[in-house]
């Protein structure tokens, strides 16, 4: 029996409704349990001495003074840890040519970025450890720092890792059709360069880990703020030479991740290594400065791109040359080539066109390593694509909405394969655009814009269509050799009191995964969500799974939960049928009661069934299955990824005297397939938009030429804050994926994907009459004025 999603009045209709988050009371009452809340007997703290230079040979380390600090127990160098922990190399077989040198938990003889851990000081308190760290003396012999992406491959630029031959980490060229021919014969060709700034995720809770090694049991337990506990289990096991079964990763409450906490960090592996050496629980909590210098960075891209259109505005070709600098190492195990690879995969995404060329060039530098951060590559690809489309529209005098309508895949064109060779199962670009026009009242907004101009106010409207990659299959990492699960599982059991426990391999980072799971399981079994307890984030307890990344929690973890719940429902009904001597097909479970499907009449509460099964099983027929625990796994098979789509719009006002951009309003229509919890989805979209707006207007990590990070604090790295955020209107089109019964695709990254492009286009819409255009993010007041030619030197 399938679920009648179309009928909102069906019994147990929790899927599709806003139900309260089961963990929210705990979190707002301060009763969450984050890693830093955990205190274990004999626990010690580690603080790291980090490289103050971007590139330097370590010529001497003096730890004697540190050892005299009261409370300091041990001081470790990179060499000490290398005896216990093997190095890793972050490459994936399917990213052909990707190279990266072996990386150790702490630098051995050379530091390669400002912030790289060099010495670890372990003490009874964090303060004592820091006190000791301040007294460690490390001598460096300066080596030339490579900081500029575009010249990293020049002959005159020093090679960071001489063994690698050059500074090229990865390059991929994708060509489809005949781009040169299209460019040379097109009605119009528009060329532009774009730049997206280096960002980092700035999670509210910094990276946190507490590792306990129990030699008596031969077991390592890591309490870890991570998105992927099972992946970390493998990593610790492999590099610390412990059987995988003897590593337990527990991930309790997490204060935001955004992709930052899905990677392997040298200092976290160092913490685990030290725990193994000392046989004591060791805690490491990154402070904010450490977060800025060591959390992965992202989005540092420079792009030259072209679009060719015919006189009717049809896109003939898109040509993209993308460059990015990733720091000195590709980040383990997902690698730092994925972001550039995504740019190649995603440019031109919404549009039906024939000739496409895109190349990404990924180079090493002496800066903090970059890796996957919310909406990996999407904000870049969408900025390039939507920037070009707007410029083409302007060049031929066409409305930006019209040019998109002429080029977007028809809503009945699916399944279809894009020029980037992405396969789309079913998207709704036109329906989404229609809905956007309706909710923003496009024509009225254009009238308002014209009216404002009469009063000297420069306002602009920006549109950005996008696609988003969600629900990844093993094509993302597994085929490249990484032990990262694309499959996820859920175990659902009914206890004697009729309540339900769901154990899931996807994880809660604060985004509401547990709420999603509770309502899916509630509907699947037929109980109220308050009767469902959700357990996630414990490798020894939950089914094996991938965790939180690439917007997969609801689409993959949700489907596994639904199937497990449905299976449990069946086994409950089988027992019920025997007890009631009824036909199983005529019984249902509604709100915790066995009922007659036809009449809805209550036959028996689940508690009664639980009592019989668990305590009076003797009264049931011999041989009757009574398995009130069911596990199901789900993996996508038909498509490598479930793409979603959507379109955003931004309305801005630009103060052409000061260069300040004010965000007036923002809209997003988004199609994530089945919406399981409208409020959670809308919050994800809003939060994602906020992060995208941060990239558009505020966020930028600055380095000087020597590779010194210049703005490692919340005062200098500007995250978007409430006062600057516009009102946001969110709406949905629902095109469920046919790969699952649930039909859900991901929703967590769409906001971030499209927002920067929408703002860029809005600003340029405002500036166009003045002959100015901005393409370098963030669009600071100064960049606006420079584009306007107001300031020169």
């Amino acid at each position, binding site marked *: 029996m399938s679920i009648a999603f179309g009928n909102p009045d069906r019994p147990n209709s929790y899927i599709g409704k806003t139900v309260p988050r089961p963990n929210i009371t705990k979190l707002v009452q301060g009763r969450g349990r984050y890693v830093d809340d955990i205190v274990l007997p004999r626990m010690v703290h580690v603080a790291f001495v980090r490289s103050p230079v971007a590139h330097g040979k370590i010529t001497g380390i003096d730890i004697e003074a540190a050892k005299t600090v009261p409370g300091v127990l041990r001081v470790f160098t990179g060499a000490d840890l290398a005896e216990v922990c093997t190095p890793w190399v972050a490459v994936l077989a399917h990213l052909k040519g990707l190279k990266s040198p072996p990386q150790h938990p702490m630098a051995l003889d050379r530091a390669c970025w400002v912030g790289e851990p060099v010495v670890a000081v372990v003490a009874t308190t964090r303060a004592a450890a820091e006190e000791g760290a301040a007294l460690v003396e490390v001598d460096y012999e300066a080596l030339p720092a490579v900081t500029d992406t575009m010249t990293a491959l020049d002959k005159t630029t020093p090679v960071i890792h001489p063994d690698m031959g050059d500074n090229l980490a990865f390059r991929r060229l994708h060509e489809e059709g005949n781009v040169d021919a299209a460019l040379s014969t097109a009605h119009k060709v528009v060329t532009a360069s774009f730049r997206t700034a280096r960002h980092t995720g700035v999670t509210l809770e910094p990276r946190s880990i507490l590792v306990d090694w129990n030699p008596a049991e031969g077991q390592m337990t890591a309490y870890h703020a991570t998105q992927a506990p099972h992946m970390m289990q493998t990593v610790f096991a492999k590099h610390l030479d412990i059987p995988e079964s003897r590593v337990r990763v527990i991930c309790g409450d997490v204060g935001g991740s955004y992709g930052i906490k899905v990677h392997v960090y040298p200092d976290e592996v160092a913490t685990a290594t030290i725990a193994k050496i000392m046989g004591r629980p060791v805690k490491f909590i990154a402070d904010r400065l450490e977060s800025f210098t060591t959390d992965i960075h992202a989005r540092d891209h420079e792009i030259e791109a072209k679009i060719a259109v015919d006189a009717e505005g049809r896109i003939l070709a898109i040509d993209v040359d993308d460059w990015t600098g990733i720091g000195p190492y590709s980040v383990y195990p997902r690698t730092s080539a994925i972001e550039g690879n995504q740019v190649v995969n995603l440019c031109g995404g919404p549009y039906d066109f024939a000739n496409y060329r895109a190349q990404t060039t990924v180079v090493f530098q002496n800066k903090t390593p970059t890796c996957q951060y919310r909406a990996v590559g999407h904000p870049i690809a969408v900025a390039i694509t939507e920037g070009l489309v707007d410029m083409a529209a302007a060049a031929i005098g066409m409305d930006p909405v019209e040019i998109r309508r002429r080029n977007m895949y028809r809503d009945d064109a699916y399944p279809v394969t894009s020029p980037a060779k992405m396969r789309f199962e079913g998207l709704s670009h036109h329906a989404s655009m229609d809905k956007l026009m309706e909710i923003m009242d496009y024509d009225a907004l254009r009238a308002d814009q014209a009216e404002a101009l009469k009063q000297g106010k420069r306002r602009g409207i920006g549109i950005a269509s996008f696609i988003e990659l969600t629900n990844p299959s093993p094509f993302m990492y597994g085929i490249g050799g990484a032990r990262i699960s694309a499959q996820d599982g859920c175990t659902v059991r009914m206890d004697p009191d009729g309540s339900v426990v769901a154990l899931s391999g996807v994880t809660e980072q604060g985004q509401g995964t547990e709420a999603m799971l509770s309502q899916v399981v509630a509907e699947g079994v037929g109980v109220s969500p308050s009767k469902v307890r959700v357990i996630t984030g414990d490798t020894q307890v939950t089914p094996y799974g991938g965790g939180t990344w690439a917007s997969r929690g609801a689409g993959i973890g949700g489907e596994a939960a639904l199937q497990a719940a449905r299976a449990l429902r069946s086994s409950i009904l089988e027992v019920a049928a025997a007890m009631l001597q009824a036909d199983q097909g005529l019984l249902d479970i509604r709100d915790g009661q066995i009922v007659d499907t036809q009449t809805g009449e209550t036959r028996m509460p689940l508690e009664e069934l639980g009592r019989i099964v668990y305590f009076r099983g003797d009264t049931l027929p011999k041989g009757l299955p009574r398995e009130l625990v069911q596990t199901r796994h789900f993996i996508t098979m038909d498509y490598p990824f479930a793409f979603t789509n959507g379109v955003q719009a931004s309305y801005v006002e630009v103060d052409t005297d000061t260069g300040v951009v004010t965000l007036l309003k923002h809209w997003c229509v988004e199609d994530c397939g089945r919406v399981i919890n409208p409020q959670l989805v809308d919050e994800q979209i809003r939060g994602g938009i906020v992060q995208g707006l941060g990239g558009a207007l505020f966020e930028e990590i600055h380095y000087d030429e020597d590779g010194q990070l210049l703005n490692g604090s919340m*005062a200098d790295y500007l995250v978007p804050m409430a006062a600057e955020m516009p009102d946001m209107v969110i709406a949905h089109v629902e095109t469920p994926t046919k790969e699952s019964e649930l039909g859900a695709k991901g929703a967590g990254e769409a906001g971030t994907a499209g927002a920067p492009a929408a703002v860029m286009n809005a600003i340029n819409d405002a500036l166009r009459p003045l002959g100015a255009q901005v393409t370098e993010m963030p669009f*600071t*007041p100064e960049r606006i004025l420079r584009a306007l030619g107001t300031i020169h030197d």
Partner: protein
Amino acid sequence: MKASVGGYARASSLDHALQLLASAEGAGRVLAGGQSLVAAMNMRLSTGDLLVDISRLSELSGVSDEGDTLRIGALKRHADVGRDALVCAHAPLLAEAVHYIAHAAIRNRGTIGGACAHADPAAEFPACVLALGATMHVAGPHGSRAIPAEDFFEDVFATAIEEGEILTAITVPKAGSGEAQVIEEVARRSGDYALAGLCLVKRDAGHRVSLFSVGPKPILATGAMAALDAGDLDGAVAALAGELDPPSDTQASAAYRRHLAGVLLRRAVARTEGGKA
């Protein structure tokens, strides 16, 4: 990072505070609202301080009407400055400035004395007291001194307060009838330190223009003031560009700040003339 503090003592009176400072042999550090100092300690930019907590000293709090002047205790918190009836009536510049300073939580703790003693070149209050022509009162082991605001701010985070001294109060001349006081600034986000900011006081005696976040300390733009007195706004904007040597940093270049100063001056003048900016 964990702060490394040398010690802490809460002063029970101004004399007690001065004694504590004197006995600290140079390591003493006044703690008022803690909104700059504690942040610096938490980044270990300041270590080993013997903190002398003055936050409970009633001698340093309150606002009083002294006839031609208003006396504002150094411990007056930003939020209280903003809603104080005397300040709103007689030194509206200070009340308006509060809206630009940080966020509510910080305004609830930070003190006007702390802001002036800290002398961040991007802070609003130092520029305000300079534009108002205030007098800064400090007490030390050898008695009290009154320092004109013009002489008080010396450099980045440096003032005329000497070792062992405490800023006790600020007196500002009460606004005359018809006097206009406005502050204009542009920051990347609300509550951020300004990219550039400007205070304009228009009195019978003439204009006073001060700027913040455009140099190592708040700057009195005497050239622009003279031009404004002569009724020459364009001349004032031009003079301003000449008398500023702003820094470049990750948020904005010197050229941007110089340009912005001119824009702010025009907007401030427009407001004092009753027009909209």
